């Protein structure tokens, strides 16, 4: 599904190296988690993959289903099946949530040469999916994320994911700012989307999200490289002992 080889990334403005030869392969249908201390490059990885400005790839490659995505525009990556659930979903005053969702769905369909969803079909689908995420009609009508609580914003991200049906979902610290109930709701939403043809890359600081979204593989990111890969038990080890031991072992 996603194959990242020897990825080197610098911040354009600061001439600062963030990723230093990162290798990562996520197979179809699998859930991979990336954990790591602050500043290890977790968010940079999610932004570089989704095409945000401000990052320069100096070496390496990233392929989604065999296609090089690094040269694509953000919207092309989205149409190719990549989805980033933002750590901080952006508020867009003036654009209705529903209009935004429909525009996004139909833009992607159009880009893939598929027929656009009719207003009626769209409405039916969005209502059903919103209901399971406890998103009410009022939230759908309001401007995108404006005045939403932290939990509502994250649920809205998952609703977008459910509507767009991407192949590769990156969740960037989706657990930040969520209470236990909200995290459960979001995790249920994600689990409902787990499928043989869909992969997840869950970026998180804490093991607790991984109690709800059970990963197949866990990676530890440090100084822009994966320093250790293991099963779900690796996340528990981090939760109990912190990163210090792993880092010491790497630097020894």
């Amino acid at each position, binding site marked *: 599904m996603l194959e990242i080889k020897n990825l080197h990334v610098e911040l354009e403005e600061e001439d600062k190296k963030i990723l230093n030869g990162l290798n990562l392969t996520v197979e179809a249908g699998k859930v991979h988690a990336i954990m790591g201390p602050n500043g290890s490059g977790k968010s940079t990885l999610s932004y570089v993959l989704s095409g945000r400005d401000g990052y320069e790839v100096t070496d390496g490659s990233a392929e989604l289903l065999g296609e090089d995505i690094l040269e694509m525009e*953000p*919207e092309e990556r989205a149409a190719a099946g990549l989805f980033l659930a933002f750590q901080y979903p*952006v508020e867009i005053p003036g654009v209705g949530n529903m209009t935004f969702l429909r525009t996004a769905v139909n833009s992607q369909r159009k880009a893939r040469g598929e027929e656009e969803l009719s207003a009626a079909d769209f409405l039916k689908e969005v209502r059903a999916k919103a209901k399971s995420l406890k998103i009410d009609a009022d939230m759908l009508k309001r401007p995108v994320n404006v005045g939403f609580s932290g939990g509502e914003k994250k649920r809205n991200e998952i609703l977008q994911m459910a509507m767009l049906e991407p192949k590769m979902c990156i969740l960037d610290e989706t657990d930040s700012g969520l209470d236990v109930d909200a995290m459960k709701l979001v995790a249920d939403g994600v689990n409902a989307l787990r499928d043989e043809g869909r992969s997840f890359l869950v970026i998180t600081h804490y093991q607790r999200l991984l109690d709800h979204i059970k990963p197949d593989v866990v990676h530890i990111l440090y100084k822009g490289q994966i320093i250790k890969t293991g099963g779900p038990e690796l996340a528990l080890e981090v939760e109990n002992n912190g990163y210090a031991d792993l880092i010491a072992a790497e630097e020894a």
Partner: protein
Amino acid sequence: MALPKEKQEVTDAMLSHLPEATGGNWIKTARSAAMDRLASLGLPVKRDEYWKYGDPTHWTAVEPKFTTTSEASQVFDGVEPLTLVFVDGVFDADASDALALDGAEITLLSKAAQADLHWSQSLYGVLETRANSVKPQDGGALVRPVDRPFAALNTAIAQEGVLIHVTGQVARPIRISYRSNGGQALLHHAVKVDEGASVTLLEEGLPAARYDVMIEADVADEAEFHHVRMQGHAPQVQAMTQLYARLGRESTFKSFALSVDGVATRSDAILELTGDDASAHVGGAVLGDGKDVHHDDTVFITHDAVNCESRQVFKKVLRNGATGVFQGKILVKEDAQKTDGYQISQSLLLDDDSQFLAKPELEIYADDVACSHGSTTGAMDEEGLFYLRARGVPKGYAEDLMTIAFVAEAIDEIADEALQEVVLAQVEAALAGRRG
């Protein structure tokens, strides 16, 4: 008092070109009085306070600078209005509907001007005269108002216009549809809305290559006046619109204008709230593209009664060196307690070459009022843009969505949702046209 030399020269040049005041008794009197006002006020020069951001020579020059033509505009067809067509300022009877509407009496200025007496003599030039007259302020001091010489000029020389006397609740909107053959147009409309009556006035299209369209609206107690203008699109148009209104007790006034480009677009709205509990909203959205584009909204709202509300909401989207100006004032007189005044002017600058000049003013003499004003200038929100693109919305369309979101607050000032939709569709079409 003698005028400064520079003003005297441009004024004399204009006066020497003006025809003698003619017509029936009422209008002959109104025209020659306006001519006298013009002579004493003098035409503006760039040094005048409310012209320092603009170029008054666009209108003081005897000849227009450009020629620009246009097809008939039909943006309001969907609301099935009664339509009056003007081509270069001349009424086109064949293209127009019959001047008959339940609840309103409609006449042409050219026809009314032949009579010695007409109902419109109580309105034509009257609000302009009020705005241009020195009058005693509370406490007896004389207050010199802002000069409005172009309004006096319009009253003095207008030969055509629509005179509407609204006596009931008029359901069908009245549309004035303009078309340009490349000439000049000068029109003076007057709308008198009787107590408890209501009307919607729509304007669309390009009146001429250079034009000056003035409206005087007298909105009586508990009456409603709704106005939406879709200013015709032409890159080189020299466009002046002047809106003068007086509002009675518990009356409602709403005016919105959409403008696209133009080398010189000047829109004045001079409103006076004279009855308690009145409400006045003026809004405008501007899409300016190109280094020669200059758009100026000048608003002056006078609160002269208790518990009135006014809103000014102006949004300008500027790129490729376009200039936008907003000069908005709220004047609250001593007895206008419980006034609620709101003013916001914002610009979205899509590049470093464009500029927005804002001059918000509050002048308050009452002590129990709530007035707020704000003005912002900013670039497109990159975070929002990336968010939309990351969801698959192509860049150009994502920018359009952000732009529409930006102007939406001004469009919200239109009461009727069907009309809001018409305006939104025009904004979308204009943006899509730019993307090609």
